[in-house]
């Protein structure tokens, strides 16, 4: 008997929700509360780590960020209950710092290249509250028209001019570059499909929550254009994912859910689901 292999690249800057997603995914596949979700058949690897982050997530405690030294790939044998397809999913839990280092240092581990070369898809994570937008002085000045505030307050002074710092570039530019790196590392100009996961979707203002793709277009237009312009080679889909279910400041309320998976919400703007395996199913 053989089974399919599926590797999904998980990419994103620090604090973009990658580990929280993985914790909620582990709970979903192993608890089997959601009949349509991917279900755990067996697991390869040390799942102590998965259990640890799942426990923190389930009790609404802060899920610790992944340091570079603790990066790993978890392997799960999963079954799709609808097609009965069984597959071995390889999913890394990378540190956001390692992606920031790719952007700054312009290098990547050879093992990352090996993984990217055969990946079925890429999950790109971003957190709506941690988007650096690279505001222009022109826009800042326009925004302050009519407000009594010295221009120097937004512009600083000559002495205070800050030299160019790669690590402070707009989030959308870095994410485009990470996707370009992935395309560069793939053989035969064959970029994989992309799921953009806007994490902490519940923190997006209600008025902007209609469709994740529209939110992306408004808030990270360079990334959205890049995805649209390359969609023939690399189809993409934008998901709004609330893996935690709410702000941890409201943890007491969140803990009232008996089934932690009931806190999860995943949307593409048309359909809403509690199945956090949906983006993974779309990628593989």
């Amino acid at each position, binding site marked *: 008997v053989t089974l399919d292999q599926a590797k999904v690249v998980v990419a994103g800057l620090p604090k973009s929700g990658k580990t929280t997603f993985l914790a909620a995914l582990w709970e979903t596949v192993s608890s089997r509360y959601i009949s349509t979700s991917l279900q755990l058949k067996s697991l390869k690897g040390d799942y102590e*780590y998965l259990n640890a982050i799942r426990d923190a997530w389930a009790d609404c405690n802060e899920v610790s960020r992944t340091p570079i030294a603790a990066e790993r790939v978890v392997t799960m044998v999963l079954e799709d209950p609808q097609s009965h397809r069984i597959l071995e999913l390889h999913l*890394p839990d990378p540190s956001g710092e390692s992606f920031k280092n790719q952007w700054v240092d*312009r290098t990547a*581990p050879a093992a990352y290249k090996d993984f990217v070369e055969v990946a079925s898809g890429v999950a790109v994570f971003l957190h709506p509250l941690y988007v650096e937008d690279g505001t222009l002085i*022109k826009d800042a000045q326009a925004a302050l028209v009519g407000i009594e505030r010295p221009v120097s307050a937004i*512009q600083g002074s000559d002495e*205070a001019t800050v030299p160019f710092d790669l690590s402070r570039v707009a989030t959308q530019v870095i994410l*485009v570059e990470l996707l370009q*790196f992935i395309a560069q590392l793939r053989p035969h100009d064959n970029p994989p499909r992309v799921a953009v996961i806007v994490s902490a979707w519940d923190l997006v203002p209600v008025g902007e929550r209609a469709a994740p793709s529209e939110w992306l277009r408004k808030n990270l237009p360079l990334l959205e254009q890049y995805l649209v*312009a390359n969609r023939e080679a690399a189809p993409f889909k934008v998901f709004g994912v609330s893996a935690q279910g709410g702000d941890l400041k409201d943890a007491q309320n969140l803990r009232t859910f008996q089934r932690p998976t009931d806190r999860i919400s995943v949307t593409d703007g048309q359909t809403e689901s509690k199945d956090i395996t949906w983006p993974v199913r779309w990628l593989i």
Partner: protein
Amino acid sequence: VSAPVNEPADAIAVAPPIDVGAAADEIELLDGKGLSPDDCTAIARSSVPKVLFFAGTANSGKTTLLSTLYMLFQRGSFCNYNFAGSATLIGFEERTHLSRVASRSVYAAVPRTRHDPEMLHLRVRPIDDRHSPTELLMCDLPGESFREAKDSGEACLRLPVIRRADHVVLLIDGEKIVDSTRRQQARNDATGLLTSLVLNGVLPSSSAVDIIFTKWDMVELCSEAQKATDFAAFLEEDLRRLFGTKVCELRFGRVAAYTVEAKYELGFGLKALFPAWAAPVERRTRPFQLRLRARYDTSIDQYALAASQTVAGK
């Protein structure tokens, strides 16, 4: 790819994790900086990429114009084109830094063009997807090279990339138009360079020439705005008279690419110019060797080679 299943359906197997960060060897990624036209390695044909050659005196606004194009795409699609990628994101970011609040700069500014010309790359694609992406390579000629090319035929012949240019974009500094003591200098700079290009046979017969009055906000908002705009109109007429029949296409534009004046939107004037720059080249004129540094083998080179093969196969 398939692998054998050894476990019973409900078993949980344990194996060591794969440490993606443990590999000793690292691979180099695209460096993202401006491209030098002098040390390139692969062959591109005339339809791919499309080359824009920006020339103007020091401080005429070349870098501002190029960085503003990039900033416009950071806000959304522009002129019905989507941003589709760039091999020089860092090159653009370096040039836009002083325009951003994060720089804490007092005035929005751009760094001066370096002594060695660099090329910036943008890949754009029409929103309607009816055409393949256009690869734009934009050469930012330093003011010093401009002056030399205007004054010396030898220097003119040494201009990088210009023989391959699909568009030569000549910038006339609006700040000089405003100043009655420097207006004629602005006229002579423009006519001098074009004369040198045409008479030295450097300008490709298929190249369109765009002449742009930059810093147009300064022209319109100065105390003698009428005189300044009249002079710009006169200069336009004069350049048409001199070169209208000498180049394959001559266009004029008035641009205030980046100004804190609220009256002028970001990239004011560029909407009239950009579609022609981004439009696919329809006719091939001559093969051109564009040598790219080895580290770009995976981006522009591959694209250019693939495109060449596609064209050759037609």
